[in-house]
C-alpha cells in the first residue's frame, strides 16, 4: 500500500513538474536530441490549437521561431532530415489540420524524390501520435530529454528573443507568381512528384489554404537559379515562389553548421516572411 501510494505520488509530481516546465518554455520545446522526435514534436505542437501560418519543411525550417517564441498564430512543422511533402500528404488525408497559409521550404523538396516511405510519415498514422495530440504530457515536444537538449542548443545557436521584432533579412521584393512553364528536361520522378504535390496544393487552395514556396537561407552555394522542377511545382500548384535565401543580405545570415541558421538569423527570416505576407 505504501509502495503504491509513493509510486503514484512520484508519478504525479513528475507530470506536474513537466507541465510547469512546458509552460515555462512557451508550450513546446525547440528540439530534442532525436531528429525523429523533434519532427514529431513540432508537428504535434503545430497541429494543436489554431494557426494562421504553418511552416513546412526540413530541419532548416525547424530552426524558425513560431508561437512558442512569441510569433502568435505561427506554427513550425519542420521535419528533421525530411521535407514538407510528408506533412502535405498528411494534411491532404485529413490527419493534420491546415492553416490559411502554408510556407513550404523549397530547399529540401528534392528529398521527396527518392519516393522512400519515411518514419515520420508512418508515425503520423500511428496511435501514439494521436495520443500526443490530445495529451500534451505524452507529446514528443514534452519529452524530458528535449527540455535539456533545447537548453543546450539555445546556448549554441543563440536565443530567438534576440531576433524577434528587431529586423529582417532586408529583401526588397516578395513572393511572386510563376507564369512561365519550366517543364523542359524534367525527370519522370520530378514530373510524378509535381503532379502529386500540385494536386494537393490545388485541392487545398480550393478549400481556402494558400501556399508559398520559399527558398530559405542558406543560399545555393553556386548562385544558380532555382531548380526548374520547383518553379514548375509552384506554377502548377498555384503557389507563389520566393527566393529568400538567395536575395537575403548575407551579413544577416549566420549558420551554425553550414546549413542551419543561428537563432537571430532564423528570427530575421520569419520577420521577412511576416513583412512579405501581411
Amino acid at each position, binding site marked *: 500500500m505504501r*509502495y503504491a501510494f509513493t509510486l503514484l505520488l512520484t508519478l504525479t509530481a513528475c507530470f506536474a513538474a513537466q507541465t510547469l516546465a512546458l509552460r515555462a518554455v512557451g508550450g513546446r520545446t525547440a528540439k530534442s536530441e532525436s531528429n525523429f522526435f523533434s519532427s514529431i514534436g513540432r508537428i504535434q505542437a503545430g497541429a494543436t490549437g489554431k494557426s494562421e501560418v504553418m511552416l513546412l519543411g526540413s530541419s532548416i525550417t525547424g530552426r524558425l521561431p513560431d508561437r512558442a517564441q512569441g510569433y502568435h498564430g505561427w506554427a513550425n512543422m519542420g521535419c528533421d532530415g525530411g521535407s514538407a511533402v510528408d506533412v502535405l500528404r498528411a494534411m491532404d488525408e485529413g490527419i493534420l489540420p491546415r492553416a490559411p497559409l502554408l510556407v513550404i521550404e523549397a530547399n529540401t523538396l528534392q528529398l521527396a524524390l527518392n519516393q522512400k516511405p519515411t518514419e515520420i510519415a508512418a508515425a503520423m498514422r500511428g496511435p501514439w501520435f494521436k495520443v500526443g495530440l490530445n495529451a500534451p504530457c505524452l507529446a514528443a515536444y514534452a519529452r524530458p530529454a528535449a527540455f535539456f537538449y533545447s537548453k543546450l542548443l539555445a546556448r549554441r545557436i543563440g536565443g530567438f528573443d534576440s531576433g524577434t521584432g528587431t529586423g529582417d533579412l532586408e529583401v526588397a521584393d516578395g513572393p511572386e507568381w510563376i507564369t512561365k512553364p519550366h517543364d523542359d528536361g524534367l525527370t519522370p520522378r520530378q514530373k510524378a512528384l509535381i503532379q502529386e504535390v500540385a494536386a494537393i496544393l490545388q485541392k487545398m487552395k480550393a478549400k481556402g489554404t494558400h501556399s508559398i514556396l520559399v527558398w530559405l537561407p542558406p543560399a545555393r552555394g553556386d548562385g544558380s537559379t532555382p531548380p526548374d522542377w520547383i518553379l514548375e511545382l509552384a506554377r502548377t500548384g498555384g503557389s507563389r515562389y520566393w527566393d529568400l535565401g538567395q536575395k537575403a543580405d548575407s551579413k544577416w545570415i549566420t549558420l551554425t553548421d553550414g546549413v542551419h541558421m543561428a537563432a537571430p538569423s532564423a528570427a530575421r527570416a520569419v520577420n521577412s516572411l511576416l513583412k512579405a505576407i501581411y
Partner: protein
Amino acid sequence: MLLAATFALYYAPWSRGRHGKAWQVSLALVASVIFYGWEDPKLIGLLAISCVGNSIATGRIIQHKVAGDDALVRRWTRRAVVMNLALLGIFKYLPFIAGLLPFLPPAWVAAAKAIPLPIGISFYTFHGISMIVDVARGEVTREGGALVAGGSRSGRFAKGVRDIGFYLLFFPQLVAGPIVKAKEFWPQISAKRIEDIPWKGVVRALITGYFLKIFVADNLAEQTASLTLGPANLAGSSPLNLIPLLYGYSLQIFADFAGYSLIAIGLAAMFGYRFPTNFNFPYLSTSITEFWKRWHMSLSGWLRDYLYIPLGGNRKGPARTYVNLFLVMFLGGLWHGAEWKFALWGSLHGLFLALERLASRNQDPECRIKKTSALLSSSSSGLWSLASGFFHWFITFHLVTALWLTFLMPDMASIVAFFKGVCSSKTGFSGPPIFSLVFYGTAAVLYHAWGWLKEHREHFANHLARSPLEPVLHGVMIFLILTNPGAPRGFIYFQF
C-alpha cells in the same frame, strides 16, 4: 491483449480443479503458438517438427533408461541432438556454408540463401538439446515418468508432446531466452495459483526491464545506428563522434538484452515460473572470465554444461583446456549468427579467456575472480589495491566494448574505417551522440552502481531497498517510459 486474455484464463476458477495443470499448460502452449505464429504462421510448422521429434526421442530415451539399456539411450540421445542441430544447420547455417563452397552452382547458393531464418530457432534448439541431454543424464525424472506411466500410449504421448511443447515454446523465453535448462524448468510444471505470484519481483522485473529497453536502449539506438552507415561515413567522422557512439552501443546492447531478459523473467513469474537470472551487472567485471559469469548467464551455463564439459572441460590438461575454451567461445560466437564477424567476436573472447586461464594457471579460477572483485570492495585496503582493481575493470570494460565492434559492424572494412576515424585528427562533433550517451547511458551506469552497492555495500543496499527510494525510482522510471520512449525497435537478440 493476448497477454491479458491468457493471464485471465490461466487463473480462471476452473484452473483450481483436478485438471488445473492440464488446462494451464495447454492454454499457455496455445497462447505461445499464437504469439509465435502471429507474424508468419508458416514458422509454426518448424516448431511442430521440433516439438514432436523431441517428444518421440524423449519418450524413447526414458523407455530405454527404465529398461536399463544404456546403448539405446546413447543412440537415441545422439539422434535427437543431431535432429536439433540439423534443424538449426539447415535454417541458420546452410546459406552461410553454401556461400563458402565455390563448386556449388550459383542457383543452389541462391536457393540456400533464400531460406528464411525462423525467429528464435537458436533458442528453442538449445532448449530441445537441453531436454534430451537432461533426460538422458537422469536429471529430469518425475516428468519423464509421465511419459511411461499408466494410461493409453496415445494419451501418454499427447501429454508428453504438450509438456515438451510447453517447455520449448513458453512465450516469455521463446524468441530470445533466457535459455532455461530442462532440469530447471520441468520440475516447475504444475498447477499454479494466482495468490502465489511474487508480485513484488514481477513489478520490479517488468518496470526495470521496460525502462532499460524503452528508455535506455531504444533512445541510444537512434544515435548508434550511424555506426552501421558504412566505411566512408565512419572514416570521415571524428573521434569525438565515434567514441561516444561506441560507448553508447556497449550500453545499448546491455540495456536491450538485459531489459528483454528482465521482461521475460517478470512475465514468466506472472505465470508461476522462475527463470534464471541472465545478467548480473556484467560491466562490473574485472576480467573476461568474470564477464562471462555475469553476461547472458543462461547461454554461458548452457555452453558449459552441454559443450565445454562434454569436450573434457579442464580435466584433460592445460593445453586441452585452452583449446576447449577457445572452441566453445568460437561456437558460441557462431551461435549468434552464421557470419564470420560473430565467429571473430567469439574467437577473440575465447582467446582472452584462454590467455586469462594461462596467466592464472597456478590459481583456482574462483579465487582469482574473488580476488579481482575484492579489489573494488570494502575489504580492499590501500590506494594500490583500489588502483589495481580499477585498472582491471577499466581494461575489461574497454576490451568488451571494443569487441562489440565485431558484433555490430557489417564487415571488416567498417571496423578498419572506425579505427581510422578514431585515430584521425578531426575535431568536429555533433551534439546528439554525446548528449544521448550522458542522458540515457547514465541510467545504465546507475543500474551497475546499484549492483556494486548490492555486492559490496550489502547493508547499505538493503537499507535503501527497504526505504521509499524504490517506489520513487519506479515512479520516475514509469514516467520516463511514458514520456521519453525511443522509437520502437525490435530486440537485438530477436535476430539470433
